């Protein structure tokens, strides 16, 4: 047993516990509260949800971090965009969630990224027509979620239409989102975060500018 552990790198060996970012004080209640906001965010796209203030690793929004704490565990491979992939974040997620960090976006059930990643949304798992649920859920860190409203959303979860202003998305995004919607029932689902703010954009939402 001991010999085995020594012969292969164990999860704890690379973990730096010094300065580890704290997780939830009360994992049961706080996970439920964050999940309910994520559920509302994805079932009512474009509504701004907020999570309470807490610690978060550097470069990571509080809302992104709390989503990870609430939803990730050993069953959920996570892809982190290289610019966000700090030791502080990886250590915190491995300690609190025990999730596997994967190198390929298409292997990931969840992805944590900024909006300026290379390639487009089709590099993530899209699910299949038989199993559209097997697609990546993206947590995308943006500058602001209450900027000047320049997008009009419509679709399930929206009574008529809803105006939103998401700042920090480059010019590729409208086309990427419309391609994503066209792939229905396949496609990825997005949770945008800024600070403690959280907004959902599932694959069913139509975006018009």
């Amino acid at each position, binding site marked *: 047993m001991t010999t085995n552990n020594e012969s292969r790198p164990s999860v704890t060996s690379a973990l730096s516990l010094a300065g580890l970012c704290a997780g939830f004080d009360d994992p049961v*209640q706080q996970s439920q509260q964050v999940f309910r906001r994520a559920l509302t965010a994805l079932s009512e796209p474009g509504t701004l949800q907020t999570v309470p203030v807490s610690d978060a690793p550097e470069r990571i929004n509080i809302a992104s971090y709390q989503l990870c704490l609430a939803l990730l565990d050993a069953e959920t491979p996570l892809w982190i965009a290289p610019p966000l992939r700090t030791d502080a974040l990886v250590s915190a997620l491995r300690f609190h969630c025990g999730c596997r960090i994967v190198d390929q976006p298409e292997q990931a059930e969840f992805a944590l990224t900024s909006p300026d990643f290379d390639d487009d949304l089709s590099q993530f798992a899209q699910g299949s027509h038989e199993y559209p649920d097997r697609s990546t859920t993206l947590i995308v860190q943006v500058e602001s979620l209450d900027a000047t409203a320049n997008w009009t959303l419509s679709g*399930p979860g929206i009574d008529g239409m809803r105006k939103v202003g998401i700042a920090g998305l480059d010019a590729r995004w409208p086309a990427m989102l419309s391609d994503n919607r066209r792939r229905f029932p396949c496609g990825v689902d997005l949770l945008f975060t800024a600070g403690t703010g959280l907004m959902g954009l599932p694959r069913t939402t139509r975006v018009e500018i």
Partner: protein
Amino acid sequence: MTTASLNQHTDTRADNTGYNFAYLDEQTKRMIRRCLLKAVAVPGYQVPFGGREMPLPYGWGTGGMQVTATVIGSDDALKVIDQGADDTTNAVSIRRFFARTAGVVTTESTSEASVIQTRHRIPETPLSSGQILVYQVPIPEPLRFIEPRETETRKMHALQEYGVMHVKLYEDIARFGHIATTYAYPVKVNGHYVMDPSPIPKFDNPKMHGSPALQLFGAGREKRIYAIPPFTRVESLDFEDHPFEIQGWDQTCEFCGSDHSFLDEVVTDDEGGRIFICSDTDYCNQRLNTGASKEAV
């Protein structure tokens, strides 16, 4: 570190039942939560989930209970109905279960509840934004009685090959002159997936369309979860010359005189005596409290 986190877990327990908050362990809740997020993202699609054994038999709402246990928080108010009634065995025991394991407030009032678990009815009082309606589902696959193979029904949903469902409804018309399906009447969600609305009477189908409340469906034995987000298009399948219609009654409720709610027929003696009463007990009581009566109509 270990002692501290153990103490925190003790603090979050509702009482000394020895169970985690709302019975399910956190690993299971996270798994179901991830399924729920995918379910609202693909409205009407049945997401497979690792259904757990619950401390009551399949058929008593194990799927609905797992969904409720996963979404409910300590600030929620829970209502549970069984065929519209708050006071029948299934409703009472599930309500007590969550009062005990989660310590949540329970209510019989539709408007005061934030989470409503239901067996086979949608309340008569219109639901509002922010409420969650959790359905107990026995057979989630609407095509199952037509095509028993799961691999095939998956393909049929993927290709939207729903002709057989229309044939089934047409056979009703050929035999009876009208569509004789009265409950679990198939619906199409957001123009894509055909979905089983659970065995609610077709009287309730129109309430699903554009509802401001979030609707979640849990099937425990079949291990499927599906959802309808608020303000989503839900159409009952029909034909141009045989449009969808809901049931109506010549009678009114014996207690409150309602002529627009779903009525249950109750046999009162062995000489053919029968009365009709509202199936939604909370709605009937509300009307009685505001002075409505059979005589007043």
